[in-house]
């Protein structure tokens, strides 16, 4: 169907060239320079080498402290993707997401009638590579949000109890998965391939150089937070949450160099050849 439509477009606009592109979609947080502050140039530059034309990439900067469906979150993402698709004539888009970015993308893919911009984005998207997506929420979000009524009213002041954190509480994600989001068990499938990379452990041995990829102090803290999580977790998300939607591409140790686990910090860095696996997947 798509090829048929493209022929029609070429007939009237022969100078238009379709292209393959990749967009990097960050996780929870309000980003203005996600390339440097969330991803790294090393990671992004490595991944985009897998494109036929490595200039066809974009790094999304949106406010993912808001609920996924808001104008600041999915609305902003839709605007930036729409512009990228139009400006670069993208007809085959891969979205590389991390953490809660997977939920915002799943919102768009699952709710095409919410916003008139969504259908074209869905049609241009071929694949989502979801790095450690928080598809089933995290008990850590519950731990952060549990508080008194007064501060619930002050989430915007406190910062930590932002709407995106609330949304990622386990029972909240259960509601969204069962009502508004596709791709989890028993729910309609996502029409776009949504393949996940699952982080299964945190390694923080100070004598092991691998513990320093992504920052050593982060690794130590993630080991503490594992007390709220299952034995299989990346320090922020249970493996069951990361694999709740779509299909599992691989669990870290199945592919990583030296069978190293990918903590939640490391799954957005060029640690243990993760960047190469994604590059080869484009």
């Amino acid at each position, binding site marked *: 169907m798509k090829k048929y439509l493209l022929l029609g477009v070429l007939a009237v606009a022969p100078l238009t060239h379709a292209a393959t592109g990749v967009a990097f979609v960050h996780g929870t947080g309000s980003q203005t320079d996600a390339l440097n502050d969330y991803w790294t140039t090393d990671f992004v530059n490595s991944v985009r080498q897998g494109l036929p034309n490595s200039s066809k990439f974009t790094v999304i900067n949106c406010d993912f402290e808001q609920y996924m469906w808001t104008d600041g979150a999915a609305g902003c993402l839709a605007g930036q993707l729409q512009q990228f698709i139009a400006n670069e004539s993208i007809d085959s888009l891969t979205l590389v997401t991390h953490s809660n970015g997977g939920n915002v993308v799943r919102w768009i893919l699952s709710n095409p009638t*919410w916003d008139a911009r969504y*259908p074209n984005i869905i049609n241009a998207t071929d694949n989502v590579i979801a790095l450690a997506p928080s598809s089933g929420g995290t008990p850590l979000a519950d731990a952060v949000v549990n508080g008194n009524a007064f501060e619930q009213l002050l989430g915007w002041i406190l910062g930590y109890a932002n709407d995106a954190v609330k949304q990622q509480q386990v029972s909240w994600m259960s509601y969204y998965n069962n009502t508004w989001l596709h791709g989890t068990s028993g729910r309609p499938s996502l029409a776009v391939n949504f393949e996940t990379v699952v982080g299964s452990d945190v390694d923080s041995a100070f004598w092991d150089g691998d513990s320093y990829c992504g920052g050593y102090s982060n690794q130590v803290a993630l080991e503490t937070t594992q007390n709220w999580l299952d034995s299989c977790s990346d320090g922020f998300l249970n493996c069951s949450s990361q694999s709740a939607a779509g299909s599992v591409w691989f669990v870290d140790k199945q592919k990583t160099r030296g069978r190293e686990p990918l903590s939640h910090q490391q799954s957005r860095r060029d640690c243990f050849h993760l960047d190469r696996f994604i590059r080869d997947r484009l």
Partner: protein
Amino acid sequence: MKNFKLLALPVLTLSLSAAAADNLISLDPIEARLTAGPIALKPLPISKPAELTAPSGEAINQRRETVSFITPLSGQYHAAVMAAEHTSVSDEYWRRVTGEELNRGIGLNVSQSGSLIRLAARVDNSSGAPVRADSIAPADIQLELPGSKLQPQELIRSQADSQALATAGLADNSSALLMSRSAPPGQYKLKVKSILNPNAQYLVNVKEKGSPYTLSLTTPTSLATGAQMSFSLKLNKTSKALKPSAFIRHGDGTETKVALSSAKGFWQANNIQQSDEVTSGLSELHIQVETQVDGKPVTRSVKSAFKSYVNSARLGAMGKTQWRKKLPETVSFPIEVADEGRFQLGAVLTGIGRNGREFQILKTEVAGWVSGKAQVLELPLDAELVRKSGLKPPYRLRAIELKDQGQMARLSLSDSPRSLR
């Protein structure tokens, strides 16, 4: 994946026209069980008010444009399992305390060795201005087990301060103590040495990872205003009658204490004071249980989220189908609304295969602004996809779902087949 492409229909096909009110029928939500819940013996009783009510406040989605979308499907049709309930399982508890209480020392029930204790500084706005409590350094926290020969330092295995926890996602000004594996279950005393603001608010969170004493709470995933809130509650390893306390945290962050009663194996929350106001957030039922099991003091907190909504619209009986060369192109449904708003209708179209079985052809969705009391939503069907499927009539609609995008609520979902005519 390419051959599973979606068809966007930018030409909007939702139409609005008058519909006879006496054609309206009620579509009951599918009642299905959640996957293997520990206390899932029978479905929770579900009630829904018959009358329509308009939500108040600002709608979440106020877009006026009509958008429709068709997703090609293939394979035999199987009804999706829609969970109407959610089960939360807790091996932890949390309590609110003041700085004065922490300086004086608080009793802390611990039923599991190697538990984790977290102290989080909170904010108090009761005076009208937010007062943020200071974080507590782990070194200032003392833990004692009265009557035990164990020294306080022997009770603690490791500590983490607020900066360390923040880097891992627990960015709420909290500190944590991991108890040693030799620290036995019992009633401990927790005290903070540094002088705290007496009125400052703190959260004490005791996480007993791996404890057999889990508290399970099963609630409906959504609750219409005016409906009864029934839920199930069970503490593992005990058959004792529980005396839980409860409150509802509403979508706007306010809280209401609720009275609980039990009958026929279910609990019921009374006077939950649902509002007609649209809120972006979900509501939560919070339950606290304190009891003794096998001579150990067990305290548990558990919560579960649900969508609070008003019954703002309903679909009528399926209307006429537009045909082209004996293939269906569109089908209409009357919709009755309490007030104007943005509504979404979706369904799966099926046909009959050579083996006489029902196969799916496509999923169709449409959303648009509906105003007036009786209108029609029109679903596009794509005759070409139907022809290519090779499937034969009767063509049926399945999984007919009505949503209110203004409230972000599912109003109805029916899997009863409706043959196109």
